[in-house]
């Protein structure tokens, strides 16, 4: 997507692509989709060795980018992941790593962050409520008790919570938005595995029935997490966008090839103007999506003043474009796209899920007005 990769970035891309090809190509993705956990335990650790969970963390905390542009680097990995619909909580895991590096207390940074970066433990982010609202803190509240804090409510769309050691939970508190690093095994935490449209990933609902926590479990300031949560949403959105671009690119490439070789009425179907024009429009969706995601990545790397707006624009634009692209590819494949054995539906499922995760297009459109104070 980025037209000017450095040598180090190319290396990152190539090693990631080769790892995916060897370790988890689409046939294996299908196996995992049919498995109980949805991802195998060693995959995350091996991926971590390639740096997948350290790119957004500064060197001081044990991470490091390859180019100095950490989001550009992470997006390179995300794109390759998206291309072959990789499982695992890459996006929320990186959000947690980023959040702990920025806001975590010493103990969180010393004990949790290294395990996450090394892929030894899974940490995931619980930001939405179970209706799919991404309003900050939706679904959960935390209140001070005598000596500690009590967390209640439910969070939805928590990826791989069933495998997680820790959950970074956003919640409303009487003094404002708060983030908490909650051990997944803490008393009162109930994790419900869900089925879903996107069979290449696993999501859970996590219920908190008066979970007792201490101030040491707070990430950042109690009541002071608004800015952090906003930035984490941007991080999550941009990584998801990069994964979407990879999936869009691959889905389109396969559909385009099919239009060149499939014949009907004595011609390749891609020679029919109806098909050709649909594919041209689809290609425009893909190129403009790449362009706007590039802008979003740069906005984060440059800490642009209007980064939130640019990310929201990209998430809204690509959220709609990706679904249209996947639907157009489906139309290109015709009947074969209805068969389970064809990969088209996996891309449709994934891209449709990506469109809603970390804010659906309509939510981001409304948010742009709010960012302008309008």
């Amino acid at each position, binding site marked *: 997507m980025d037209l000017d990769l450095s040598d180090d970035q190319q290396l990152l891309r190539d090693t990631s692509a080769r790892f995916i090809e060897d370790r988890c190509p689409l046939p294996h993705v299908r196996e995992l989709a049919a498995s109980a956990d949805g991802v195998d335990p060693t995959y995350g650790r091996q991926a971590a060795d390639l740096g997948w969970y350290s790119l957004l963390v500064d060197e001081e905390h044990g991470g490091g980018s390859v180019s100095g542009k950490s989001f550009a680097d992470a997006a390179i990995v995300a794109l390759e992941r998206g291309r072959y619909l990789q499982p695992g909580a890459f996006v929320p895991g990186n959000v947690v790593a980023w959040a702990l590096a920025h806001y975590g207390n010493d103990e969180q940074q010393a004990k949790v962050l290294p395990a996450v970066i090394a892929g030894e433990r899974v940490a995931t982010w619980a930001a939405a409520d179970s209706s799919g609202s991404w309003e900050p803190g939706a679904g959960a509240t935390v209140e001070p008790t005598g000596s500690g804090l009590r967390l209640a409510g439910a969070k939805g769309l928590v990826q791989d919570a069933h495998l997680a050691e820790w959950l970074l939970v956003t919640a409303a508190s009487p003094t404002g938005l708060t983030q908490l690093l909650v051990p997944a095994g803490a008393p009162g935490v109930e994790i419900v*595995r869900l089925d879903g449209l996107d069979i290449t990933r696993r999501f859970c609902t996590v219920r908190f029935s008066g979970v007792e926590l201490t101030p040491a479990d707070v990430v950042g300031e109690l009541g002071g997490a608004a800015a952090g949560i906003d930035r984490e949403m941007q991080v999550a959105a941009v990584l998801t966008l990069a994964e979407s671009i990879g999936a869009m690119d691959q889905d389109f490439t396969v559909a385009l090839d099919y239009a060149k070789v499939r*014949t009907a009425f004595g011609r390749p179907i891609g020679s029919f103007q109806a098909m050709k024009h649909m594919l041209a429009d689809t290609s425009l969706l893909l190129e403009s999506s790449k362009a706007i995601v590039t802008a979003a990545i740069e906005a984060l790397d440059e800490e642009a003043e209007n980064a939130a707006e640019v990310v929201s624009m990209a998430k809204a634009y690509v959220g709609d474009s990706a679904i249209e692209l996947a639907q157009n590819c489906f139309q290109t494949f015709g009947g074969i796209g209805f*068969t389970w054995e064809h990969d088209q*539906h996996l891309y*449709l499922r994934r891209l449709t899920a990506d469109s809603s995760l970390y804010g659906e297009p309509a939510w981001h459109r409304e948010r742009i007005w709010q960012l302008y104070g309008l």
Partner: protein
Amino acid sequence: MSANDLEEYRLTARKWLEGNLERRDPDVGPSLRGVDHKTVEGIALERVIQRKVFDAGYAGITWPTEYGGQSLTPAHEAVFNEESRPFRTADFGVAGGTTMGVCARTMLVHASPDFLRRHIPRILAGEELWVQFFSEPGAGSDLAGITTRATRDGEEWILSGSKIWSSGAYYADYGMCLSRTDWDVPKHRGLTWFGVKVDLPGVTVQPVREINGDAEFCQEFFDDVRLSEADVIGEVNRGWTVAQTMLVFERGGSDSGEVRPRPTRPKGLAPDLVALARRAGRDKEPYVRQQVARAHINDFAAAQLARRVGGLIRTGRGNPAGVASYGKLATGTFGALRARIGMEIGRGGALVWEPGQLDGMAPSVTYLNGRLGGIAGGTNEMQRNGIGERVLDLPREPSFDTNRPFNEVVRAAANWTGATGSA
């Protein structure tokens, strides 16, 4: 035939039904999935019921006695249908509809008397279920472009190739199979239909797992299957004529221009979508309300369009097959839009559900099925061609496959340059 005769027929039928069939259980509604999944064991029980009906002379009421029918009038048939409605008659699922409504009717028009004597009585007796072996993995929109081949070998034919999208083939007895018997003539002129018994050596029937989880369709593989001259349906190399008859029956005779009843007024505002919006807590959000109303209005527009298309055919205002494409295209475009609106208003909450929670799963299943109307049974593109050329009388698309031998067409398509001969 007097009204008295009919009344007597009715009373006799009623008496027979009461004495021989069970009453239908009114509580058994349609299943939750789109298609009722049949099993070979279940079908065996249905065959027993059908046999009783056949033996009593109530199968093929309007069909020739020569082939096991009763040669009675459509009025008799209507009477029996009315009387038998409360009773548990044979339910052969989708293959039953194909057998009686499409295959047998097509046979009656085109097959030889020998063929009909051999098969129709068995069909009426519930001993033979037939499905279509028509579409192929490589030939969907271009139905006449099929490449399953039947080659003459002395008195026999050898069939090889593959068919797909045959509904219910996994429990059927026969497939009515279109194959290419002459590759040196234009594509419509070298086709022949065969009756293929599904348990013949070399026939493999596999269910096709669909993206929505169903597996009602099958794919068949023919590996040098030996057929006899007696298996030919219609004339050799005149199969396209047979296919056209079949397509008319497949459309349910909707070309007849019968007056459709006024579509029911909408029964509430898109109930599924309103329920979904409520579950998401979004039924008061103006944008969500816009999207739901859009889907509701499109539903109504499609229903009114169907009525108008019926009127156009009835009053002779349009090529029936052409104007029928309006309805199909509306379904094909509105369906995908509506499915997407469901996911949009359900947003993240519609992506996941607790295992087994059917209403949580519904928007996703609808979404996965959303493009079905735009592809199956004729793609949106085919409908647009049909409207453009048959209704609007727009100049034709250049044709590259109608005037030359099919084997040349295949070759030329693989080496396409876009060049047309200089004049």
